[in-house]
């Protein structure tokens, strides 16, 4: 008697390749138990192992077939990514450290362009005083020059009190 579709479904189920079959069909339960018993027996057969000599020969052949330049352990992709991240992080830290050191080292000094005083000509022609800053500078120089033109010094006593508007220190022999 040829195998039935029920047996086909049971086989697929027993090997994990199909859904559970309808075991209420006539004869399905008996067929399932028979096939399941045989499957259990097949599963209990001991595993077959190749000889160590065969394995050794295969591994030697595999090594001999590998080009000499490629004899180095593989770097798994995840490890390669971690390595790249670490290198990137180290480079970023080095750049930040370098910039920080440069800022700290140059912080107490004025930049060279600031340290240089503006050199103005001793005398500027009148028509060249259009610039406000230069005009203010010239005005300040004029004022300073004027303030320094003192009159000739005279004794304090020679200044009349009314004119001075203040008190004159007493001198010896003077009375109020």
């Amino acid at each position, binding site marked *: *008697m*040829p*195998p039935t579709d029920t*047996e*086909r479904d049971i*086989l*697929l189920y027993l*090997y994990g*390749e199909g859904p559970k079959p309808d075991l209420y069909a006539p004869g399905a339960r008996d067929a399932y138990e*028979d*096939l399941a*018993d*045989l*499957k259990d*027996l*097949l*599963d*209990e*057969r*001991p*595993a*077959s*192992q*190749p*000889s160590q*000599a*065969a*394995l050794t*020969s*295969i*591994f030697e*052949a*595999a*090594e001999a*077939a*590998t*080009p000499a330049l*490629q*004899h*180095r*352990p*593989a*770097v*798994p992709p995840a490890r390669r990514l971690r390595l790249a991240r670490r290198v990137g992080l180290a480079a970023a830290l080095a750049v930040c450290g370098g910039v920080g050191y440069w800022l700290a080292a140059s912080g107490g000094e004025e930049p060279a362009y600031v340290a240089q005083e503006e050199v103005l000509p001793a005398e500027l022609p009148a028509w060249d005083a259009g610039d406000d800053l230069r005009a203010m500078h010239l005005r300040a120089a004029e004022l300073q020059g004027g303030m320094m033109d003192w009159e000739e010094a005279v004794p304090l006593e020679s200044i009349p009190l009314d004119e001075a508007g203040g008190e004159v220190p007493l001198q010896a022999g003077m009375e109020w």
Partner: protein
Amino acid sequence: MHASDATLVTAYLEHGDQAAFRTLVERHQERIHGYLLGMVREPAVADDLFQETFLRAIRAMHAQRGSYAHQGRWLQWVMRIARNAALDHLRRQKRWRTVESADEDREPVWERLPDTEPDAVTHIDRKQQIELLNRCINRLPPEQREVVLLRQEAELTFREIAELTDCSINTALGRMRYAVNNLRKMMVVAKKNDAEYAPY
């Protein structure tokens, strides 16, 4: 971490990682050797074919790197090499006969045997049952035996078996159904005969 076969193949081919190749072989050696031993039935010959399979695989892997790596099915690829090696050997020994699909519809000898007293199977020791089962597997028609070995030893799915043996999935399933039915009946008959000749 369980690296996939494809990852191990890449590690071996691209970086010469011998440990990856060892892992690959150790992962599948029982499946491939079990199939070969079931096919040729002689441990020494199975060892030779196992070695030959991997030597062919190593050469092919280095020669055609992209042909199988992208398929992600290294075991099926190696099983095809193992099957070719086994069939070559059996053909040289004239022990492989291609069974046409129509032949499977013919009733084998043990099909005509009465399917009685199935419970007698349970009377003998489990270890003896397994030995008896192995003998019965060896007596199966070649293509039925091969499907049992590919499903049971190599753990290929019926679809993968169909691809490997160039048949439809229904044919692969049909061969398996015939095989298990025949195994059950052969075991019943063998036990009955053993019981008849067993000394009291």
